[in-house]
């Protein structure tokens, strides 16, 4: 799931919910691996493959340690106190592993921009992002989609993916110190910082035109008041992915707002 492509494959079984379930079970204290399986499945039968894949995914994320058959949690409780905390924790890991299968697929999907609109099922999306460098199949996409939507890259709509990085960007604004609240940042500076924090989005930008997912994410955050998108005269103008009827299609500056607007 979260390790190096191509050896490590994306699979649908280890959903964010299941990862959270295992973390909370492990929070009760170290436990023998067979006992952990019994606890998670509440059954004396041999654990299913889904359990084993889940176990591997949690280990890939570095959340557990196994020694002498005893499994120990390696994550502070605050890091998974709720799903939002888990989301930020996982984002901090997976988006800093550019070589991982998950990162690569995220980057490729976001770089599709409007091309993604044509993908009306998961197999189609897998075909769109597969090239000489990367090959993904439908099952990989099925696994990716749970985490992509959980980590804030967009929304699922039946068998399509709606790219929108609002949640992802809000998370990095939430945690990053590099965005002084209330300060007007020139577009280039804002984007530079954003791409440092959300490197998976970089490939979706074409020069000074931001990708579909980032653009609609920024529009959404502007609508929520989390940030303000400004157009000033005589300044370098950047473009958002064009939407005919939207009032924001370009910007010169961005102001990140503070506590009252959904940011801690």
């Amino acid at each position: 799931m979260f390790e190096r492509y191509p050896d490590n494959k994306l699979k649908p079984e280890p959903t964010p919910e299941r990862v959270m379930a295992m973390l909370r079970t492990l929070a009760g204290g170290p436990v023998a691996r067979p006992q952990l399986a019994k606890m998670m499945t509440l059954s004396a039968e041999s654990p299913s493959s889904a359990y084993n894949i889940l176990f591997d995914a949690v280990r890939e994320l570095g959340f557990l340690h196994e020694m002498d058959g005893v499994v120990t949690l390696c994550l502070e409780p605050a890091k998974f106190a709720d799903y939002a905390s888990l989301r930020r924790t996982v984002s901090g890991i997976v988006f800093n592993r550019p070589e991982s299968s998950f990162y690569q697929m995220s980057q490729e999907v976001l770089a599709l921009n409007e091309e993604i609109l044509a993908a009306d099922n998961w197999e189609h999306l897998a075909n769109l992002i597969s090239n000489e460098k990367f090959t993904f199949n439908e099952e990989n996409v099925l696994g990716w989609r749970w985490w992509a939507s959980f980590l804030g890259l967009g929304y699922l709509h039946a068998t399509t993916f709606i790219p929108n990085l609002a949640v992802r960007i809000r998370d990095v604004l939430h945690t990053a110190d590099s965005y002084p609240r209330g300060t007007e940042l020139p577009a280039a500076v804002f984007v530079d910082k954003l791409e440092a924090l959300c490197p998976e989005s970089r490939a979706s930008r074409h020069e000074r035109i931001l990708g579909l997912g980032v653009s609609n994410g920024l529009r959404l955050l502007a609508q929520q008041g989390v940030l303000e998108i400004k157009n000033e005269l005589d300044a370098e103008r950047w473009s958002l992915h064009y939407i005919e009827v939207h009032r924001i299609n370009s910007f010169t500056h961005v102001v990140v707002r503070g506590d009252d607007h959904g940011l801690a």
Partner: protein
Amino acid sequence: MDWHRALRRLESDVIKIDVMASDEAEFLATHVPFSNLAVHKGGRTDAPLESWGEEQVYRGLVENEDNQHRLVMVLGSNGAGKSHLIRWLRARFVSSGAAERQGDRVLFVRRLGNTFRGAISQLLDEGVIKNTDLEARLRAFVESADSQDEGLFMSTIHSNFIDQVRNDQEKDTYTAPQRRDIAALLSDSRVREQLMCEQGPITRFYAQIARAAGKVVTGEAGFTPEDFLFERSLIREVQTNGSKEAARYIANLRDEEEREQLTQYLNTFVSAVLNRCANIVQGDTREVFAELRRELKKEGKNLTIFIEDFTSFRNVDSELITVLATEHGGTNADLCRVTAIVGITDGYFAQFRDNFLDRVTHIITVNEAAYGEGAFLKEFASRYLNAIYSSQDLFKVWHRRGADPNHLPVGDFTPPIPWQGVLVAGKHMTLYPFTEKSLLSLYGLLSRKTPREMLRILRDQMSAFINDQMDGVPIRFPATVSGVTLNWRIPEHGTHLDRAGLDNKTRERARTLFCLWGTGDMYETAGSGATHIGGLPASFLRLLDITVGGISQSGGIVTTKTSTNNTSPEPKPATQVISPEQRAHERRKKALEKWYQQSQHLEGSQDFRLMIRHFLASAINWQAEGVPAYIFRKRMDSIIFIQGQQQEGSPERAMVVIERAPQYLDILRGLLEYDFRKGWGKWESSSASYYQLVLAEWIEGMKSMLVKSMLTSKGQEWPMARWAMGVELYRLALFGKLDGKESHLQVLELLLSDENDKPSGLERTSGRWVELAQLLLRKHTDLADNKELLQDIKRTYMGVPGAGGGGNVRLFHTGELLRVFAELESKNWSLEDALSQTASSAISASKTMTVSYELAKDIATRIDEVISDEHAQAKKVLADLRRVLGDRLDKETFDRAGLIMADFLSMLHANQVAYKGVKQADAARLSEECDRFAQLCSVVETMLNETSRRKILAFYSTDPCNLLREVFDIIQRVAKLATEQHELAQSRLAALQPQGDALIDAKTVQERISYLEERIESMGRGRQT
């Protein structure tokens, strides 16, 4: 511009919905030539069709220098323009001098009030009725119609029908007694009142024949079966209080066939009744025109008659048509030639055309082909606008000078901004404030597409426009076109307008303008120095006080007035072949816009609710928001409410409320398009991205509220897992599935297992335990639901809830389950405690939400009673045993008691004393299982001090006290047997006193029994001390 004059012109002079009422100068000034009139030669509409212009009709059929007999029927629906055409033909015939040249007497019977009275009145005024007696009678009729009270006239009509029925001799339809009954029924005051009510047939006859001029009558008179479909109460009333004849007949009218027959029967009298009311007798009409034709013949003249609406002569139609159809010459050499141009509706013509087929020389049909073209509509509107904007004198002078179409005057009105116009007779006439598009749009919206209806709509719009010019605020133009749903070419442009901050009325006006006048979008373009929005000059919008920015095709919302795009997009051509899916989609789109714009119910709202449900199911990662897939599946259906939905529901109970507001309109539009296109790919990219953004904004705006709502009930904590687990634990305990020694994890496994074995431990026949267990057995369905809830509510689910798939993998939130378990354990599984944490006001009506809650309530109030009952039974059996065995219920006690009893029974057996009710093996069992009985007594003793409900119930679930009761029972039975034998021995001893050996034997037995009794008693005494 003198707007007061314009208003006067509009209201009083120019636009008359009944075109025949307008002045001839205005009429000619506003007349647009018909170009595509369908002409058939002969009386058959299936004859070869030719397309003629009106001038061709005039020259070919009205001008008649060859003295050809002509009976020309002009057909068309109401408002199609028959009258207009006939009036124009007549005006052309007179004003061109042709009538005079040909020596024709021109008779024009206009549609004044559309009544026979009106027609007769005109004939009298024209002086064509030569017979003095007939003239006197007809004058009397016209005057009486003028002077008579409406009610009196209607009574006359009513009485005439009754007379016709009474005097009828025809026997085929009804027998004489039946006719008497019918006459009696018609005479009944209640029925009479019904027939003469506002919508009744007598009122219709009155309207047809005599209603005063000025009141236009439409439709044709005649009885209908519905006229005799009486209310049940009326029938009862007639049957109770009416004459016996009426009462007898009215029952028949419940039968549809009878109503139909009566209708047909009475309609045979219509002409006769109306003629009698009009004082005319058979032959009068024929005579009027025959006499006229004879007289004209004598004068060397001919007759050209224009009848605008033949319906006026309905009661004399056959006579009139006969006399007009009679060709001059031959045996009718005394008659002059006649050219008759007769207007008649399609429906009326169809009724009796068989009578005319061989008499009619031409049929002209005025239909949409004659006026539905854009060019016609433009000229039509521009001529009326020119007349409104100009003074009446201008046209009067023109009319006096011969009304030459080529010299039609054009007023001096100049629109405040350059505007579209049309060339009429080589002169530019403005369309201001209409556009060509608006004329086509407004015409397209008409339910009946006729010039008359178009005129009505032009009048309404112009009335608003002119009034605005005079008093300005608030501006009303364009007027709302009621009952019409406006469609944007680009729907999201509608949202742009909705969000422009205009007040409701201005927004409605703007929407009407952009959708009907403009191009159906809000693209802002600049060309020839003028900015346009949606195809309309921005300056025009400003004049109408509509201040709104447009949308640039290259740069989004325009906030400044500079734009580089100078072409307005043309509407895409309509798809030629429409699939059923496309048709269904268009229907739903229309329903959606109608819902929004006209505040109507949302047709097909269940489909929209499903779209919302499907979207929410996948767009929110419910499981990763802490909402179990199970909860979403169970709750989502009932929590979506669309304002104006067709299904029952209330916004108060819903979590997702779709209001009739712009942002929700866009959400539904987006989901509808997605549903139709099965994805985002087949949209225009910008639109798809826009709706994706709209949906994402919606989701993020309500997600946290929705998640919270899912997990609570009416805003309060709703710990279903706790209740469900408590209920299931008690079910397991009461059904004997727990032994009280399991670890927490083992209990958890049992709680979430699929175990559904038969209950055990229910052999007991009475007690609270059985009562509660039986209650639960009766609620097995609810318990199954509770089990499902418990199994699923903390089970992870890989998939979109409710979308299928996802499998049934057992991977649980065990950490959370153990936490719930620990909470219940710490509260000693007190359901009352679990229930007390939720206010009753939070109780939901949803079965899913309440099943565990209700079961928990059932159990909570009973479980401690069960435990008390079990404890009481345990205490009693221990007390019983102590009473017979002493205080110490240990192994030795049971062993010794067993031995003694066995000894006693052996002795009886050895002495061949018969007994029953107890076996030696029972007594021996006390010794053999003394250890078990002693331990059981000890555990029961301990359990009486146990506080854990879980453990107490697990212990009692095997009914352990039953075993002790059996032990006590054995002792009781042996003791009873000993007593019986003792008494028997004593009585036999007494009887055997004189007999030596026997006495000794009996004494021996008695002593032995006494000894044993003492032993048993001493055992008891020994324990007590």
